[in-house]
């Protein structure tokens, strides 16, 4: 964490344990399609925002002791994005307010648990230094049935070359809803880019017979772009495992692909939204991904600059790129994904395939195991048919 960071406390102030329905007091609450909560006892439908106290948002500003003046907030961290303590345990013990029993919750996988004595549902509500409770979350908007339909359609469109065993074993019935941890970065920055660009002004043919060739006249420009940008909701994985994208070992790029989420609709964390879903605990601190987020900011700035220079059809060579962030805010978030997974075991190696659905936008992406022999044979048949045609065209062309 940088010394200049301003901290905003987003802890709900609620104690861990029972988080009740505001109408009947039951703890059996689930998220229904559309992202609202529904009590499974009295059927009351409600939003947690109305039922919970607002988070403390007053910033704790740091004071420059030399000048006794308030330092400008270059970087702001919401408290749910605080560094993870090295001695913090993922196992949290909650004392049930219903019967007094102690219930252990493994925050690596879930944030709620049912009391084994009185059967009430307990949830973790207050922020702790193990990264399990974020600042914000997006509730599941798509129902399991809607996600299953998307996954069935995605896989169904890829059945011809799908591996035989996969086809025999595939069922979307056991998909799981998972809250994955992310950092959300909002930033204001001043950007300055300069370089060389080209514009094709004439295309023509020179030479004769065998020396005939097409050439181009290109106007070369020196260009520069200065602008301010406001980036809202840059989203980066806060799990080291999810950031590990290795094509031969996993298909984590599938989960990466279904971004972006509608971060603007995120709500303060409330454990009721996690009931019925699994979750993955954040294991990454801001300093570990600051460079990655910064590099992505440069990419965003470059893309913006490109959009102001569409005239240059011969390309742009950016030679100097500067980005000066004036205000950066970091929040931690749980974002919802419906996930189907399939472990392919082949020749002693394993590859975990995912089909994932963004539970907010419905964007679906997946990796389907391939029957490579079948695909190779079809490609070979196409090749055998195409070769004589290719020879004919080359002969005609010469």
């Amino acid at each position: 964490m940088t010394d200049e960071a301003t901290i905003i406390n987003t802890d709900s102030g609620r104690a861990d344990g029972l988080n009740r329905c505001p109408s009947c007091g039951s703890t059996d609450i689930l998220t229904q399609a559309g992202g609202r909560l529904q009590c499974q006892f009295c059927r009351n439908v409600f939003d947690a925002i109305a039922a919970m106290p607002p988070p403390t948002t007053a910033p704790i500003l740091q004071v420059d002791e030399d000048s006794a003046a308030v330092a400008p907030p270059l970087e702001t961290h919401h408290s749910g994005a605080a560094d993870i303590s090295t001695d913090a345990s993922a196992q949290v013990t909650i004392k049930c307010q219903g019967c007094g029993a102690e219930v252990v919750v493994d925050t690596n996988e879930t944030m709620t648990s049912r009391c084994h004595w009185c059967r009430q549902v307990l949830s973790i509500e207050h922020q702790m230094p193990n990264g399990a409770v974020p600042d914000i979350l997006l509730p599941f908007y798509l129902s399991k049935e809607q996600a299953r339909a998307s996954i069935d359609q995605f896989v169904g469109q890829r059945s011809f070359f799908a591996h035989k065993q996969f086809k025999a074993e595939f069922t979307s019935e056991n998909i799981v809803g998972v809250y994955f941890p992310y950092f959300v970065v909002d930033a204001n920055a001043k950007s300055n880019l300069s370089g060389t660009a080209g514009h094709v002004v004439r295309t023509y043919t020179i030479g004769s017979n065998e020396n005939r060739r097409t050439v181009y006249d290109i106007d070369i420009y020196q260009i520069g772009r200065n602008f301010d940008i406001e980036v809202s909701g840059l989203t980066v994985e806060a799990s080291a495992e999810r950031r590990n994208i290795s094509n031969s070992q996993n298909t984590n790029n599938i989960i990466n692909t279904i971004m972006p989420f509608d971060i603007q609709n995120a709500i303060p964390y409330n454990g009721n939204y996690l009931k019925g879903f699994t979750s993955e605990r954040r294991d990454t601190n801001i300093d570990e991904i600051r460079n990655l987020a910064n590099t992505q900011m440069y990419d965003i700035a470059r893309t913006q600059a490109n959009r102001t220079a569409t005239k240059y059809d011969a390309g742009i060579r950016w030679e100097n790129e500067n980005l000066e962030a004036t205000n950066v805010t970091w929040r931690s978030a749980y974002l919802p994904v419906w996930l189907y997974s399939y472990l392919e075991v082949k020749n002693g190696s394993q590859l975990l395939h995912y089909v994932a659905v963004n539970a907010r936008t419905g964007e679906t992406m997946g990796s389907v195991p391939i029957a490579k022999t079948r695909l190779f044979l079809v490609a070979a048949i196409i090749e055998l048919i195409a070769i004589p045609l290719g020879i004919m065209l080359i002969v005609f062309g010469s």
Partner: protein
Amino acid sequence: MDESSGLAFLGILLFLSGPIFYAIMYNRYRNIRERHYHESETPVQMNNLQVYDKLIHRQTRQSTNRITGANSTRVNGTLNPQRKFFG
């Protein structure tokens, strides 16, 4: 591209049709190149734009329609490592 060289190019393309089909199908099923396009999908607002464009000179009879070292489409912040297409 004149007609004869166009036919020859098409012929070469047909020679490669088997591997091309394999690659297209492989990527359609495995989606190994898919990723989040953070550079274009992240909401962003641009303000106070200042533009500087100055014509330096004209290069004539260039054999390619691209300038040397064009890098505007480069993306550095992707999680995907450089890798073999077939995984």
